[in-house]
């Protein structure tokens, strides 16, 4: 695998994406089913409205930041495929960031290349950018934040974090693990934080267990002394300011429509139409009346508990924590569409070198369970949406099976993961020093 240089891999991926964009143009012109994502048409219409000095929110179902419409203005000036090239470039940038992050963490070249290939040649990812979906931009920003944190560039990380939360909201789930990892002993001013290097062995980085971490975090003294550190305050202030700045500017320009479409809609979204979420049929069966606060809380509780436990268990192993959080967030969300899967696909290559899972057979089993459950869902979805058969119950059962598949896959991945803190923690450094003294 090492014989495949990273450069040639990137060139090959770029050519492949270029060909797919050209093919998409052909399919759109000649076939009944379009290759281009329907959202791309929405973005392009919004960009065209913006180019003519109007609000992008005049385009119904445009529910994104005005920044996205701004980035796609060349669609109306140069060529309608501009956005697809932009998203595919971001997709390649994600590949570059994956390699940089893994190299910095001391992962050998052949493992790096293998991991990068999991992103660059994943059918989900190369089709999503070339069909005109904006998620690769979000993935690139998320990985940039991780890279900035690894380089000790706190201000840059905070800037990108504020921007990405404005752009897509869901990365708000990364706020707590980021704040937890901003340890003042790790981020010493003027020095790059020391990164825990990858090792082939089975040794795992020491971490306190979950109950003690819980006791620690809910201890009022800990809250005061440990949480309110300079690094955390700076990160919170900068990222918060960027988010508020974007919100205020776009509220000034586009008013209530911006707030409603780009922010509030995503926070309160309950979609009665079929989607991968287990909640869709429940929502549809109750769509004729408002949901009570208790009902809303009950459906939010599993999501909240899972997020909290994952953060408290894996925050110091930041890439793994983000991956597990994202898989769980998508799986327990009230609305799930296929594009959300890209949110964790971009983090998957970052955890593979630390997995004890062999491709034979647990790896194959995980992939098969997940893909099989999804194909099963798609079959019922096709019968409902394109054949007009009443298979709502079967589709809802398929959603439950898909949740079970997500849970099984996540559980297997956590089981097979060798925990490794992102940074060398002060206590680990002291332990290592003690160990080396004993050896002498």
């Amino acid at each position: 695998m090492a014989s495949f240089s990273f450069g040639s891999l990137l060139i090959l991926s770029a050519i492949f994406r270029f060909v797919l964009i050209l093919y998409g143009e052909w399919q759109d012109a000649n076939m009944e089913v379009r290759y281009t994502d329907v959202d791309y048409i929405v973005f392009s219409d919004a960009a065209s409205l913006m180019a003519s000095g109007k609000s992008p929110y005049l385009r119904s179902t445009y529910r994104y930041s005005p920044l996205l419409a701004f980035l796609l203005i060349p669609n109306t000036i140069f060529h309608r495929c501009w956005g697809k090239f932009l998203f595919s470039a971001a997709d390649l940038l994600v590949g570059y960031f994956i390699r940089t992050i893994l190299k910095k963490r001391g992962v050998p070249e052949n493992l790096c290349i293998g991991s990068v290939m999991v992103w660059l040649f994943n059918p989900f990812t190369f089709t999503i950018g070339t069909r005109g979906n904006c998620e690769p931009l979000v993935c690139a920003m998320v990985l940039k934040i991780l890279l900035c944190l690894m380089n000790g560039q706190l201000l840059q990380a905070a800037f990108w974090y504020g921007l990405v939360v404005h752009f897509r909201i869901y990365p708000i789930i990364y706020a707590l693990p980021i704040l937890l990892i901003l340890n003042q002993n790790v981020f010493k001013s003027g020095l790059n934080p020391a990164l825990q290097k990858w090792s082939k062995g089975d040794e795992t980085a020491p971490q306190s267990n979950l109950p003690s971490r819980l006791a620690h975090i809910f201890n009022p003294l800990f809250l005061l002394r440990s949480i309110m550190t300079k690094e955390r305050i700076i990160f919170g202030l900068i990222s918060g300011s960027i988010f508020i700045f974007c919100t205020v500017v776009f509220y000034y320009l586009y008013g209530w429509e911006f707030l409603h479409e780009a922010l509030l809609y995503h926070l309160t979204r309950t979609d009665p139409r079929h989607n991968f979420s287990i909640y869709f049929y429940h929502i549809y069966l109750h769509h004729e009346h408002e949901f009570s606060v208790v009902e809303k809380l009950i459906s939010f509780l599993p999501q909240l508990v899972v997020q909290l436990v994952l953060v408290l268990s894996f925050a110091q192993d930041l890439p793994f924590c983000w991956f597990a959080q994202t898989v769980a967030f998508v799986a327990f969300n009230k609305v799930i569409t296929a594009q959300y899967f890209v949110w964790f696909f971009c983090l998957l290559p970052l955890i593979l070198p630390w997995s004890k899972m062999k491709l034979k057979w647990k790896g194959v089993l995980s992939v098969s369970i997940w893909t099989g459950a999804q194909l099963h869902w798609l079959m019922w979805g096709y019968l409902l949406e394109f054949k007009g058969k009443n298979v709502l119950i079967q589709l809802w059962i398929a959603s439950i099976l898909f949740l079970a598949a997500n849970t099984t896959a996540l559980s297997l991945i956590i089981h097979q993961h060798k925990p490794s803190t992102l940074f060398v923690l002060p206590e680990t450094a002291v332990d290592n020093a003690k160990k080396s003294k004993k050896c002498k």
Partner: protein
Amino acid sequence: MESYYEKHESFIDSLFDDFLTRDLPVNICEVLPSDLNTLLSLSIWSRIKGDGSHRQLSSTIKFKIEKSLFHVPTHHCKFIIIERLPSGVFVDPFELEHLLHRAVFSDVAVFGDTHLELPSVLSNISVVEVHKDIGLNILSHNKNLIDFTVDLPLHSRYPRLDESGYVEVRLKAPDLFLQCSIQEKPHNRTCFFRLETDDEEADLTWSIPAGKRSDAGVVSAITFVSALLSSTFSLEPAQEV
């Protein structure tokens, strides 16, 4: 001239009928005979093509001038088809705009409820107006048969609950108009006719899968139990770390 939606806030069939017959300057033209319907034969064959939630309302229109009008100055006519869509289905105005760019129609407009994502119970009726050019001096050509098909992409909304598992949406025959622009000096004149078909068209029906209220209890209970079980199961390995 005021449009229907400038006069009324919501769509009501009878009010719209009144608007078409009373408020529009139909069948009043100094150059063309007001009884144009007697000089032509017109038939429309509508059907719903495709399966599932995304279909096409296809209308084939056959139009023939039985007695040509030789004395009419140079004129250019277009057909106007007005479809009244019940709340169970909708057209995507942006999709129509793309068809307009590809010259599938000569003009198109959507009025009323154009919210694309609302379920049927929360949405309202919409009206689609499609314009189709039929050419120059068409009324002067004797026995000239004009035959064309208009395919309108329709999408179903999530319907209200129904124990039978399906909800039927009925689509009425469209209202047809002929608009002719007549070249005259010093000003061009536009005449507007409401056309009558030779045969009465039956309503079209579209069965849309619907949820059953009787499923609600079981579905809600199993949904929440699955969420709780899955969250417990996925957290098990995390607690061992």
